[in-house]
């Protein structure tokens, strides 16, 4: 029996979603481990190295610990909102991955599985290639604000509320610069589609980091602020707000916030790699044999993403936190004008 191409495509999409979710969650787990090890090493310590070889089973131990913790909901909390707030952060962070191209097109040769004849099919290593990819990403990052704001508000605690309010102000301010910094790329590519943006960076010198260095800087800073990472983690700054918006959360709900934070870090790193560092395009692609080129590209993409994840941790343990007025001043008085200037200069450059 020959499988209908429509069903086949659906099945492939499901397989891709499964693989992607698996990879993202594993990366999240090991990112927490990497954060602890790198932060320790920057401070001349060793970090967790006891659970399993080199401490590699530490994320597993953390997960088990989280599951056995008491789930506490404050009596005065709005229970419904309190329960859905973590999901409201986690789901948009995961949805961003749908449009990120991990590699080029691959052709799966025809084969037979349990008596089903499966025809040869070509598919790209991307779950869906939306023609409004960038807009979709910006939309998803905006939704994450709701999770933080509602999580902070529903707990009915002054610290969480302050954290939530700070976060919404901060994320809305930096979203502008984030969006405007990409505009230069959109002008050069002429498309919002992620695959087109990657295709526009086919050769090494075409990478947008060389054509839009200022945009990259703005994008990185704004992305750090969007993810509430240091030096912009005023949302959860321990010294002032206990734990910020997640002060009242415990057990798996708390870990969902953590997973969401790390998942959005991975998404932002993947975006930096895709938008400015050629996505899955690598230098010297021609030198790699035709059979291995896709593997080389995917590995290259993962390495690029991994570097930005390391950058996140590296920056966190290097730079002190901004004061709230400084944060707002940088967002509105520096990054936003710079992003607008970048758009203007890109326009002039395209005309000349």
């Amino acid at each position, binding site marked *: 029996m020959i499988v209908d191409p429509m069903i086949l495509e659906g099945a492939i999409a499901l397989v891709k979603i499964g693989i992607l979710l698996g990879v993202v969650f594993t990366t999240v787990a090991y990112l927490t481990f990497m954060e602890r090890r790198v932060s320790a090493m920057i401070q*001349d310590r060793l970090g967790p190295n006891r659970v399993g070889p080199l401490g590699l089973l530490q994320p597993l131990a953390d997960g088990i610990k989280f599951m056995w913790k008491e789930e506490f909901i404050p009596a005065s909390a709005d229970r419904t909102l309190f329960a859905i707030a973590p999901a409201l952060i986690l789901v948009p962070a995961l949805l961003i991955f749908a449009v990120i191209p991990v590699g080029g097109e691959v052709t799966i040769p025809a084969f037979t599985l349990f008596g089903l004849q499966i025809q040869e099919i070509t598919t790209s290593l991307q779950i869906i290639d939306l023609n409004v990819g960038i807009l979709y990403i910006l939309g998803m990052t905006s939704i994450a604000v709701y999770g933080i704001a509602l999580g902070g508000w529903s707990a009915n605690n002054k610290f969480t509320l302050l954290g939530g309010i700070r976060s919404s102000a901060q994320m809305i301010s930096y979203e502008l610069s984030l969006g405007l910094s990409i505009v230069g790329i959109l002008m050069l590519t002429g498309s919002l589609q992620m695959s087109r943006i990657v295709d526009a960076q086919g050769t090494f010198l075409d990478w947008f980091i060389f054509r839009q260095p200022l945009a990259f800087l703005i994008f990185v800073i704004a992305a750090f602020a969007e993810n509430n990472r240091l030096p912009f983690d005023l949302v959860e700054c321990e010294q002032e707000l206990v734990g910020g918006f997640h002060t009242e959360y415990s057990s798996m709900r708390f870990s969902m916030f953590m997973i969401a934070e790390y998942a959005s870090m991975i998404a932002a790193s993947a975006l930096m790699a895709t938008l400015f560092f050629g996505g899955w395009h690598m230098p010297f692609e021609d030198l790699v044999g035709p059979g291995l080129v896709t593997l080389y590209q995917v590995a290259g993409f993962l390495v690029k993403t991994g570097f930005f994840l390391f950058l996140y941790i590296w920056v966190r343990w290097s730079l002190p936190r901004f004061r709230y007025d400084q944060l707002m001043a940088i967002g509105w008085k520096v990054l936003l004008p710079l992003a607008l200037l970048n758009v203007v200069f890109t326009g002039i450059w395209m005309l000349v």
Partner: protein
Amino acid sequence: MAIVVEARKMTLAERLYLPAVIKGMLLTLTHLFKKKVTMQYPEVQKVLPPGYRGAHRLNKDEQDRIKCVACEMCAVACPADCITIEGTETEWDDREKIPRTFQIDMLRCIFCGMCVEACPEDAIDMTDNIDLVATTREEMIWDRDRLLKNYDDTRNQEGTLGQVLRKSRKAFTRPRGDQLPAPGGPGGHTH
């Protein structure tokens, strides 16, 4: 009158902050590869200085008997009141009393070492044993046998608190009354 301090105008490079940011990040990067200060505790143990005030022990004499004579000087000296001694008579010809029970509550103890200083017989001592771990409070009350076992465990340790104190006592304490020269000096008595 308020003193006005003119703040120095920052240069453009300083106001950009990026050079400073990069400098700071390079600094942390070098630390990433530096030698780590963490000591892998159970495998690697710290060498403690002589006279370290760790877990107590009850010393034994040459005949492997308890040295303590249950005079309770240590219990009196103890500021935390963590030592409980009950004496009993003994058949041994060199002393009248030995402790029947000798308990140190390690949870009360403040490890000041005053019991060791007070002991006239050098019977109580402090060692570099720092493995003071238990799962119940009762286990943390060390009885006579536990303290004697600690002596066996740390028999070879050089520089216990008692040994260090004995050395310094020779150097610093004034001679006792019977060792003083007779009043009037070496010239002898005058009548």
